[in-house]
């Protein structure tokens, strides 16, 4: 059999052309000591799953949905922007409304090219005097180049590569974290998409209530030298187990969240992707950001294709690249697909002709020259469980 090595590295192709070799993240040895199976991902050795008790993609997935999982996402890029005229300079690039982004708040945004294609999706947070960005790992070097090219010289860009990033996700994440995080206010005051400064084991950390699983949870930016200590501390809590990239992917798919390089690319616009919420209202009408022309045109006329969710009949999953049909007519392509452990059935995301995108519409997906029946389904496939305050 072939395809045994579980690698999900869409950057492999580009890495063959003289890109940097596979690097190690601060928790590399920590993962290996816990039985992680490491694979190249985004230019780093990353844990795809763990072995032994509680290990395996489905077990890790279910553990995160019912308890709490610790994900090492240190491959992602953490970038700090500062300088005179910062908001104005950033609004010229991102379709974000910074006039309404208050201190301690985080917002989802998009890095678009001149043609309105998605270069990356990212989080933007207002720190005192700074904007803090978290971008995807595979795209971070291009993002930094793009930002540097388009930002005026007065703006300083600092790549926080001396920091690691941990995500603690799941309904019991708050219980585990509350035993270690101390700060000016309690974690209960930290609602979805807010962040603050805390201390864990004497280290100054930044905690945002956000994530990529659809569950309540946190993203914790920590000094790289404290990564092993903090990861060990959190995993010593009974609610917490380390979780690999495999479950991260199945969790985000169930949550209906797009994955850059698969469901998002420079060929795709944010309107096609259904990410209109990543373009703040004022900016939709005013424009004045890179790619605004296409965004405004597709807002007015409708996009030529649309990202949708599909639930498949039977048990056979459809994977990225599978063609979608309405009768004999090819109407789109699957961009992410897999088996949902929560639903016990295959699910997929696809880009299709909007004429066939109505909920409940029955379509077919071609897999190895067989046609699988699938139904257009609302996303998320599994309801989000965000904490918006009691």
């Amino acid at each position: 059999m072939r395809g045994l090595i579980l690698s999900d590295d869409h950057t492999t192709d580009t890495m063959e052309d003289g890109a940097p070799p596979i690097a190690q993240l601060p928790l590399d040895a920590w993962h290996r000591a816990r039985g992680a199976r490491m694979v190249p991902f985004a230019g780093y050795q990353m844990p795809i799953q763990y072995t032994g008790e509680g290990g395996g993609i489905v077990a890790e997935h279910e553990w995160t949905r019912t308890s709490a999982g610790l994900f090492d996402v240190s491959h992602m890029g953490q970038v700090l922007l500062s300088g005179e005229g910062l908001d104005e300079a950033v609004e010229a690039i991102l379709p974000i409304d910074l006039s309404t982004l208050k201190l301690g708040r985080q917002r989802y945004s998009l890095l678009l090219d001149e043609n309105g294609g998605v270069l990356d999706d990212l989080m933007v947070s207002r720190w005192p005097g700074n904007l803090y960005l978290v971008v995807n790992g595979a795209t971070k070097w291009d993002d930094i180049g793009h930002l540097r090219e388009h930002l005026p010289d007065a703006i300083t860009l600092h790549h926080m590569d001396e920091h690691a990033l941990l995500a603690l996700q799941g309904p019991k994440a708050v219980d585990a974290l509350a035993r270690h995080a101390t700060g000016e206010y309690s974690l209960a005051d930290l609602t979805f998409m807010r962040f603050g400064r805390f201390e864990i084991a004497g280290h100054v950390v930044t905690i945002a209530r956000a994530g990529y699983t659809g569950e309540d949870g946190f993203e914790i930016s920590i000094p790289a030298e404290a990564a092993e200590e903090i990861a060990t501390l959190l995993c010593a809590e009974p609610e917490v187990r380390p979780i690999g990239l495999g479950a991260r992917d199945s969790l985000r798919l169930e949550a209906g969240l797009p994955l850059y390089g698969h469901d998002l690319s420079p060929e795709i616009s944010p309107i096609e992707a259904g990410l209109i919420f990543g373009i703040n209202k004022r900016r939709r009408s005013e424009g004045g950001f890179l790619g605004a022309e296409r965004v405004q045109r597709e807002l007015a006329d409708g996009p030529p294709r649309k990202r949708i969710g599909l639930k498949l009949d039977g048990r056979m999953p459809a994977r990225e690249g599978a063609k979608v049909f309405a009768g004999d007519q090819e109407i789109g392509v699957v961009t992410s697909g897999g088996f949902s452990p929560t639903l016990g059935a295959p699910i997929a995301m696809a880009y299709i002709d909007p004429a066939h995108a109505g909920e409940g519409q029955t379509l077919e997906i071609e897999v190895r020259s067989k046609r699988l029946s699938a139904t257009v389904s609302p996303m998320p496939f599994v309801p989000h469980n965000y904490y918006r305050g009691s």
Partner: protein
Amino acid sequence: MPRYFTDEHEWIDVEGETATVGITDYAQEQLGDIVFVELPDVGATVDKGGEAAVVESVKAASDVYAPITGEVTETNSSLEDEPALVNTSPEEEGWFFRLTISDTGELEGLMDDKGYKTFVDSL
């Protein structure tokens, strides 16, 4: 009943003129949770080294190759309802299909138990 192994991690049990094929414990361990197995049609002819089945884990689809040439005589219908049998009992209950042996010469060059173990240890 002799059992042979391929370097693609299939096993094959030979019993008279027919053989049973599955994937090894090492293979299922590498694949992780198996959610679907696509088996060949009974009556189909499979060629040595050619695609014969597909095993889908949560993460990815992997091809399973025929260790020898032959005609498929039976498939393991238990895998339809319980594909996880490949994880829990890969080298017994989780077998994939049975086929006729058209050329016993094709069994030469496959590994025996000991040879396969040495091969896996070298990976």
